[in-house]
């Protein structure tokens, strides 16, 4: 067998195999870098194009058709208002659903079908959620294209992500903690409330921040809802019409053919959006590192 293989042939083959390994190792490494390379180009381009346009006036100003005067405070506030809707809605519904599925639902067909349903929902294109929001929130519930409608639409969109994250967080709480609580005569809800949820909270928070950042960056569903292209007053309630950062980027990109500077405004807005996302993600990572339990 092997020892009977022609020694020369064996050596040649071994050389070959080892060379292949090291060549491909470099290829793999370059592949891993490729994504980062694109990321770098993307960021450099956006920053060089938009950075000069970012100043206090831009950040705090009102929207305008005049690029020199235009500010994105309205879009920032719109995005914040939407977040104020998305956070509690997704947290309550998402965590509630996760608790139900993990701790209350009997393992069976019903539970399995909800689970399947959730993973299907996670794969539904965001634009379809836009249509759902348009039909249900804007039209049937007659909210119009206001913060609440946008927020609820985006909440439904990211809900599956959060549910799955919360389920994993709950599952990761070791059963011996729950047992300890039951062993003291605690009821199920007491155990969930006092032991399981606190232990799962950091991971749940991380998951919800990540799904929130997904919601913030979404454009497609909002285009379907019909967000106005020009909206100067700041939104200050759930029932105000609004515009959001990605929508502003979208419209400015489209109109850059009419006013060249709009492209710079779009880039500047992208920077703001990326910074916002970066901050959110850092918070998520911070929470994850800071509160990670050792059980």
């Amino acid at each position, binding site marked *: 067998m092997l020892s009977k293989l022609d020694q020369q042939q064996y050596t040649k083959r071994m050389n070959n195999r080892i060379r292949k390994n090291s060549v491909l190792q470099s290829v793999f490494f370059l592949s891993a870098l490729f994504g980062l390379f694109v990321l770098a180009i993307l960021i450099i381009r956006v920053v060089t194009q938009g950075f000069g346009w970012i100043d206090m006036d831009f950040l705090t100003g009102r929207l305008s058709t005049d690029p020199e005067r235009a500010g994105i405070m309205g879009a920032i506030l719109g995005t914040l208002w939407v977040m104020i809707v998305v956070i509690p809605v997704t947290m309550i519904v998402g965590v509630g659903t996760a608790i139900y599925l993990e701790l209350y639902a009997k393992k069976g067909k019903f539970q399995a079908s909800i689970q399947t349903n959730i993973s299907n929902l996670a794969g539904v294109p965001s634009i379809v959620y836009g249509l759902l929001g348009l039909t249900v929130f804007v039209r049937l519930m007659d909210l119009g294209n206001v913060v609440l409608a946008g927020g609820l639409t985006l909440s439904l969109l990211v809900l599956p992500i959060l549910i799955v994250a919360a389920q994993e967080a709950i599952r990761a709480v070791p059963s011996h903690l729950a047992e300890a609580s039951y062993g003291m005569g605690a009821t199920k809800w007491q155990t969930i409330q006092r032991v399981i949820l606190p232990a799962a909270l950091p991971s749940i928070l991380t998951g919800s921040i990540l799904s929130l950042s997904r919601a913030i960056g979404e454009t497609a569903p909002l285009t379907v809802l019909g967000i106005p292209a020009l909206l100067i007053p700041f939104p200050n309630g759930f029932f105000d019409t609004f515009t959001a950062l990605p929508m502003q980027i979208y419209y400015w990109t489209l109109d850059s*053919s009419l006013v*060249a500077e709009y492209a710079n405004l779009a880039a500047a807005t992208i920077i703001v959006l990326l910074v916002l996302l970066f901050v959110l993600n850092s918070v998520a990572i911070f929470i994850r590192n800071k509160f990670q339990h050792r059980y």
Partner: protein
Amino acid sequence: GGEEAADNTESGDTSADGASEELEGNVVIDGSGTVYPLMSRLAEEYMINEQPNVSVEVSRAGTSAGFEKFLAEDGTDFNDASRPIKDEEKAKADELGIEVMEIKVALDGLTIVVNPENDWATELTAEQVNDIFLGNVTKWSEINSEWPDEKIQTYGPNENHGTYEFFYENILEEQDLVGDINLQQEYSTLVTLVSEDVNAIGFFGFGYYDSNKDKVKAVGIDFGEGPVEPSLDTIGEEGPYANYTRPVFTYLNVNNAKEKAQVYDYALYIAESANDFAGETGFAPIPDEEAQAQVEAIEALQ
């Protein structure tokens, strides 16, 4: 009459609207993307200088899509249109009991554009334009044997836009466009497409040409009396570019105007001030008399 009108608005703060009280609420406008630059400019000026507590929201779904939102229960207050309202739309309005008022806001010159490097087709007759877009000729050389033996690439805004309809109905007289025409939803895309294709020829509103003179070149059109280039001076329903000139409108939901003071006030503002901002947003103003007549018609609503 641009200068005069400008004076008007500046004093407008005190005089024209001095009597009217502080208004609140919002005005919802949707419709043509072509008219959007003018309407958004007007809306902004109105909110800054006239009624800071009124929110004018301008969207841009396109003329037809906009009419669908306009002609609906709880529909929009105004619909910008780059073509006149159609009979079906009128019928729908009647059906819903919506009284519609047409306000002509400006004049647009349909502009035929080519790539800046196109040094042959700088002038075309109206018939040649038709031939190109109907597909009667497919190569430049078929128009003029000295021109390149290359396929002509045609571009235009898609059917969502009033510009298309104007081109199809008024210029091509309802003959079908060449099959392989590249129709786009977004003007930015169109501009880019034409600016990067030497054999491109496209059509869109004057405003889009005006803002992209560095990327595309307008073709002078010969309507029989020598080539005319579109410009704020030539565009006009009586002017030399009249054949390619079309009015752009906004349609007012009169019911809403009667119910909501801010809608009425804004309608009035449009009629009074549209001419002041037409030029800078790529439109030619309408004649002053016509503008005045519209103001009076709106005032008569009260």
